[in-house]
């Protein structure tokens, strides 16, 4: 359905708080990205970003709580492919996540997920949701046509 901003809804779905949901959401969004016309490398990057974001939502946000869901919405406009992933956790402040490229953090076991989302997508915003949870909005622009 087209919105006032000209974007079209592609996917609107709740997922359980499980690792299986990470695979399912990744596959769902990869299918949508392929249908939207993204090439293989862009699809890989989008898939990576979705996987990292879903893992954060399931593991750190909802903490595998079976009563909590991860809501995923994908829209597209003429210029952008937008993915919103909303968990029902306690929320976190992205600014407080240590820089994984800092040499004091380079050998840390974890903490690279948010960085990788930013590396593979054109824009990533992390916001506290109301009344609770975290909403991550990730945007991939369509390459200008030659």
């Amino acid at each position: 359905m087209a919105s006032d901003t000209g974007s079209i809804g592609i996917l609107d779905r709740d997922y359980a708080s499980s690792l299986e949901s990470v695979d399912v959401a990744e596959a769902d969004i990869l299918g949508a990205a392929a249908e939207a016309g993204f090439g293989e490398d862009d699809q890989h990057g989008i898939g990576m970003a979705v996987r990292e974001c879903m893992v954060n939502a399931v593991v750190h946000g909802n903490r595998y709580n079976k009563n909590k869901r991860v809501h995923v919405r994908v829209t597209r406009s003429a210029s952008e492919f937008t993915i919103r992933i909303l968990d029902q956790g306690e929320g976190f402040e992205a600014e407080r996540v240590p820089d994984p490229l800092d040499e004091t953090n380079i050998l840390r076991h974890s903490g690279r997920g948010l960085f990788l989302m930013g590396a593979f997508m054109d824009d990533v915003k992390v916001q506290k949701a109301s009344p609770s949870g975290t909403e991550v909005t990730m945007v991939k622009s369509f390459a200008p046509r030659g």
Partner: protein
Amino acid sequence: MSAKLNTREVGDVTVVDVSGRITLGEGSSAMRDTLRDLVAAGKKKVLLNLSDVTYIDSSGIGELVSGFTTVANAGGTLKLLGLTKRVKDLLQITKLYTVFDVHEEEAHAVRSFA
């Protein structure tokens, strides 16, 4: 497909052939368990062959780093062999590429432990 690991000895070097996906869950825990077992068995020269790894996420990267430090803390060395372009790119953007000793040919990698 989750990761599959097979261990073999080439001289005094332990080569771990990894295939499939190293992602949070079975893939990353299989690699963690294998490397811990090798360290517990006293293996000091470990070559991780990633040429058949099709996908790796941040959890998989974390296991590579943990494996590297676990082997090093036990007085050994862990090196990487056969990175696909995507795994190489991932290690480069996370600035880990220069942390690891990376090789393209097994024979050369094995000799480098001497």
